[in-house]
């Protein structure tokens, strides 16, 4: 029950992958406005050397750890390796981690070395009666090993503090993409207030290029309990808490699919609250967002209209979203259902709307406007279902609707008790919502 291949259909990564590091440096220009961040020198030979040096020091000292994970390439991977970052905050955190690793690795070498020496040198070779010389202390030596750690701590702290301010207080550029992330018990809701789009589980963001840096800024909220948004290759995690709105940002520069998952224990299915972030090229993103802005369209092309019931945007909806929704001209005149020409899809829609589905799920442009479960408006365009646990195809979908707990024990969607034909019809309907 896994998602076959974490490969994005349209891989445009080839043009950006090799030069990822230097480009990233330059794309950070807007950050330099923040006076707390001293301009990191451009990635010249010296800096590269320094980085290499630190990396090899770290490798040496924590050979196991770094050797095991340090080979991660800076490109999308099914293993969310935090040492293979492809986006600015993750990249900065990585550089910092190398620095900390180098210092702690050095301490480990020195102190661990002394330990090994002492254990070897002073072991009692054969038992004797005489006691060794008794030494009670030495102020000078003790002072030395108080002061050296103090200095190391100061160095570590200053570096860390610089990075905290650089990442956390990074000003938001005007063209940034805004996304509101809402954690729900075991799935994610994403809203693009500027575009009036609500989607679930699969986040799309544009790649930020050298010519046109365009980071994504996220506001994190929670509809129920405590969750945490974590896609290691893109950024460190930030929690989504019910009584508190958090912010984070990413600045991805390699397109592709990134995986992550919820980072805070949130109940039975915390393990299956996966995250998928698609970094699209700007053009792709534009096309994608335009399509998401359309109301639900069943692809089978039948003249199936939608009811022009005003969409009730649930309590958490940001204002700008509602405006966008009202302004949208897509509302098509109602058409009474029950016509003879209905194909399977149409019947499926009927089933969807006459069962409890619509109490929990919304399909924009139809009567279904429930907010408890994921928005299904463009469900057919998603690659996975159940927040990334299985591939989105008709058979999986049928299994899901038959009994969600078969795939995800403890999911908050009840088994819907549909007949097999109804299952088939609903599944066809939902997958048709491209």
């Amino acid at each position, binding site marked *: 029950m896994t998602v076959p291949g974490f490969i994005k259909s349209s891989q445009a990564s080839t043009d950006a992958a090799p030069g990822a590091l230097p480009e990233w440096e330059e794309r950070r220009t807007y950050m330099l406005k923040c006076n707390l961040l001293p301009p990191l020198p451009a990635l010249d030979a010296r800096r590269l050397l320094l980085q290499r040096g630190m990396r090899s020091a770290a490798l040496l000292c924590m050979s196991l750890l770094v050797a095991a994970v340090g080979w991660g390439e800076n490109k999308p991977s099914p*293993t969310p390796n935090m040492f293979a970052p492809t986006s600015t905050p993750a990249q900065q955190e990585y550089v910092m981690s190398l620095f900390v690793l180098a210092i702690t690795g050095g301490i480990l070498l020195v102190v661990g070395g002394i330990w090994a020496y002492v254990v070897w040198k002073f072991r009692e070779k054969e038992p004797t009666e005489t006691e060794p010389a008794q030494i009670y202390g030495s102020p000078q030596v003790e002072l030395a090993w108080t002061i050296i750690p103090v200095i190391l701590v100061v160095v570590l702290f200053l570096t860390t503090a610089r990075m905290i301010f650089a990442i956390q207080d990074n000003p938001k550029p005007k063209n940034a993409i805004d996304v509101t992330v809402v954690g729900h018990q075991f799935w994610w809701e994403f809203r693009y207030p500027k575009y009036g789009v609500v989607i679930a589980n699969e986040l799309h963001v544009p790649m930020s290029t050298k010519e046109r840096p365009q980071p994504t800024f996220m506001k994190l909220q929670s509809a129920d309990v405590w969750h945490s948004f974590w896609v290691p290759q893109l950024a*460190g995690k930030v929690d989504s808490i019910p009584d508190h709105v958090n912010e984070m940002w990413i600045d991805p520069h390699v397109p592709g699919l990134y995986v992550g998952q919820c980072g805070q224990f949130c109940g039975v299915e915390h393990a299956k609250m996966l995250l998928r972030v698609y970094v699209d090229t700007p053009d792709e993103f534009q096309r994608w967002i335009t399509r998401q802005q359309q109301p639900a369209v069943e692809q089978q092309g039948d003249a199936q209209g939608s009811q022009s019931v005003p969409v009730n945007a649930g309590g958490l909806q940001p204002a700008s979203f509602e405006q966008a929704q009202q302004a949208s001209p897509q509302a098509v005149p109602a058409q009474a259902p029950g016509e003879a020409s209905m194909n399977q899809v149409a019947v499926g829609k009927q089933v969807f709307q006459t069962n409890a589905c619509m109490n929990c799920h919304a399909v924009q442009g139809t009567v279904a406007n429930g907010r408890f479960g994921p928005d299904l408006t463009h469900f057919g365009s998603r690659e996975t279902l159940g927040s990334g646990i299985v591939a989105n195809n008709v058979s999986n979908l049928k299994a899901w609707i038959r009994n969600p707990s078969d795939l995800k024990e403890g999911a908050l969607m009840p088994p819907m008790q549909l007949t097999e034909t109804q299952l088939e019809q609903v599944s066809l309907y939902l997958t048709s919502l491209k």
Partner: protein
Amino acid sequence: MADASLPIGSLDLTPDRAAEGTFREWLHGWVITVDHKRLGILYVLYSLFFLIVGGTEAMIIRLQLAQPNSHFVSPEVYNRMFTMHGTTMVFLVGMPILFGFANYLVPLMIGARDMAFPRLNALSFWLTAFGGIMLYYSFIGGFGLYGQGSAPDVGWFAYAPLTTRTYSQGHAVDFWALSLFVTGWGTLGTAINIVATTISMRCKGMTMMRLPLFCWLMLCVSALTLIAITPLTAAQVMLELDRYLGAHFFDAQAGGSALIWAHFFWIFGHPEVYILVLPAFAIANEIIPVFSRKAMFGYPAMVAASVGIVFISVGVWAHHMFTVGMTSAANAFFTLSTMIIAVPTGIKIFNWLATMWGGKLRFATPMLFCTAFVFQFLISGLTGIMLSASPWDWQLHNSYFVVAHFHYVLVGSIVFNIFAALYYWYPKVSGRMMDEKLGKLHFWLFLIGFHLTFDFMHVPGILGMPRWIYTYEPSRGWGTWNLIVSIGGIFQAIAVAIFLYNMVYSALHGEEAGPDPWDAWTLEWATASPPPEYNFAVEPVVSSRRPLWDLKHPDDPDWKYE
């Protein structure tokens, strides 16, 4: 002066077996006892029992995670397992066993006949015991054993609002809160007792600067306990007010805050980890000098460092909360305060190494465990420093790297030192030596198991594996690492089983130990093994930190140098 310091007290060792009676009398004797030694033993046995229980839960966790997409246990059961494992290990193993040692040893080491408040001592133990039983009753309560009853399943930190009535129906959370509330009072009682004992019950000549470091550290721990356990008690009262009387402390709908629970929990939770580790230091402070045949290097600095750790540790709690969205200034502050702990802790490591330097290291089993502890604690401290660098912690938080960090301390430092202590003081308590061969086997197996488990656990953390997941996908590439980790767990289980066997075997067949088998220097070795109920024949009077050293080396006594 030298002649004036001759030892004069002595104790007749004629065995006193008259006290033996029927089984009922024997049992009754243990239940109503107020003797600090018996209570200490009860504490230790209680904790060892729960070590097996908690360890079994850990093995269930490891079995489940050994492979991706495993169906060994359901998610509900898994969540109960790690919650109960963490809660058990911290509250029913770590704290009671360390208080058990304190109970047994502090009065002996300071030359007292008992704790300051013997009856409070008994009350505290039975409260702790009742709390533990209540926690485990939760498996049977509710829907019985099969469905695991209402065992808590919200993590040992029980973050709100998952614990509110809305998201946790039934009584699981109540079992967690109320049983820890009960053990909390037991702990408070013991802490009060230890402070009062060390301050007011010292024998003549035992000034504060002559106090064995073990007692100093226990004093620090108990003082820290006073101000660290009580916040948890308060938070649990609030939680129960929310759950049963409809209050709104953590109810987001009414304006209550989930964050404040996190703050309250970690205001307790962080000092708690030092409450666990300081007694481990205390043990090392006794064992390392004796087996290096040298006096502790830099005693005053050790005392100062411990007191320093106590004070700093109450100001660092939010390093568990770097990802909750604090301001950058707050993040920087807690990064700094956390890193500062490295300084006093470093002093300790260096002083231990300096004590060993130039000594004659005798690697008996207790010393083996302590030596490994020094190195492992170094590594775990350094991973702690990595976590305290908040930008990196944004990545590492709640990943298996954190799990590796804290097991490195909790197992690699604390459990190692607990074993060291059990080997070291076993002869005093039972009158017989533990078997050295089995002891060495235990040590090496446990060492291998420990490193297989917890060294390799860092890697999936770096590879983005979060905690608390009962399953993961094969494509994530975490499978191999988890398999190695699980195999290490099996080694540990075998090692612990050998240890348990050794304890029972040696109690029956062990070599007679005599009063002072390790040629040690503190007062507990100046009485019989096991000590008589009144501890000492005459009340000791001391003039240095190592009274028995002075006794054994009258020409070169310590008090000339201190």
